[in-house]
């Protein structure tokens, strides 16, 4: 049967060049060059396209995600508007992923978690953004009629999202207020994990690695009752500790 040939997408040369820089040329040794070339682009014309390409971190190699984060931080000096938009955009992608919970988007969603963590590592966002995202992942859609679609009991993808983010940047939360924030989060995380019932082995192994890396001495609770008791204790302890301590460390992270 006669068929018309498949029309391949023709991109304008400027877009082709941007894609070549980001998806072909970019590696550890060329990043300075790529950054310089990006700075030379006609920004008013291609800023939106560049943002689109920066969100395609899942198309490249997983081990290269940090290079895109590094470029973002490098560009913020000259194009702060762009660097701010990258953060807003990746947070939106994470949120949208939770709203849709589409199986086909999983790879992309994991890459975006890694990207967010790397943006923290390059000091482009502060820890509050990371913790807000972590808690959002635990609670989004819970207590609503859509809970069974957004986070069904047997679905462990959100655990993967948390693991990915903490594997990327969790080791920096090792002192001061961000250490305490991670300690606390990990107990809430444990409660979430326990609420899932049985966890696939591969995820359980990743969890064991994560806890061994970040908090080797932390208790892994084995029942909801135990973890709830730990949370009650934590909250009482927090109430007892004067808040001025928290304030004085406000700017330390």
């Amino acid at each position, binding site marked *: 049967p006669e068929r018309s040939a498949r029309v391949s997408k023709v991109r304008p040369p400027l877009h082709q060049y941007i894609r070549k820089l980001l998806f072909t040329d970019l590696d550890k040794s060329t990043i300075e060059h790529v950054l310089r070339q990006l*700075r030379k682009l006609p920004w008013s014309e291609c800023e939106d396209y560049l943002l689109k390409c920066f969100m395609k971190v899942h198309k490249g190699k997983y081990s290269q995600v940090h290079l895109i984060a590094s470029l973002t931080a490098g560009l913020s000096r000259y194009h702060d508007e762009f660097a*701010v*938009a990258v*953060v*807003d955009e990746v*947070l939106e992608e994470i949120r949208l992923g939770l709203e849709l919970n589409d199986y086909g988007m999983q790879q992309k969603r994991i890459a975006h978690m890694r990207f967010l963590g790397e943006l923290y590592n390059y000091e482009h966002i502060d820890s509050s*953004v990371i913790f807000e995202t972590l808690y*959002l992942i635990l609670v989004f859609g819970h207590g609503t009629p859509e809970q069974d679609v957004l986070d069904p009991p047997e679905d462990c993808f959100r655990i993967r999202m948390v693991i990915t983010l903490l594997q990327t940047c969790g080791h920096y939360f090792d002192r001061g207020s961000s250490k305490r924030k991670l300690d606390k989060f990990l107990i809430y995380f444990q409660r979430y994990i326990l609420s899932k019932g049985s966890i696939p082995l591969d995820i359980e192994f990743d969890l064991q690695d994560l806890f061994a890396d970040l908090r080797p001495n932390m208790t892994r609770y084995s029942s909801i009752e135990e973890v709830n008791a730990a949370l009650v204790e934590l909250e009482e302890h927090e109430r007892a500790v004067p808040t001025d301590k928290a304030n004085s460390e406000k700017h330390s992270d």
Partner: protein
Amino acid sequence: MKDPFDRTKVVLRHLPPTLSQSALTEQIDGRFAGRYKWICFRSGKNSQKHQRYSRAYIDFKRPEDVIEFAEFFDGHIFVNEKGSQFKTIVEYAPSQRVAKSWSKKDGR
């Protein structure tokens, strides 16, 4: 970390995909003209396969203005040209960062 009560940057989500920036700012300015410092519109996409809502980020001058804005726009229904309804969500933007107003000219 910013005190929750100091937050001034909000995100307006689930706007109609075909909404234009000018149509949105017209609606906002009716009540909030001069009360925000910065607005960034991200237009959506209306294709069969991947529909994407439009969004807007707004940085208000005073935290109190955020409350009034949310009272007005959170849950606000936009109707597109085909009559479909879009229920808007107003939230604090998870990242409160706003671009520095001074723009350094890139000597490249």
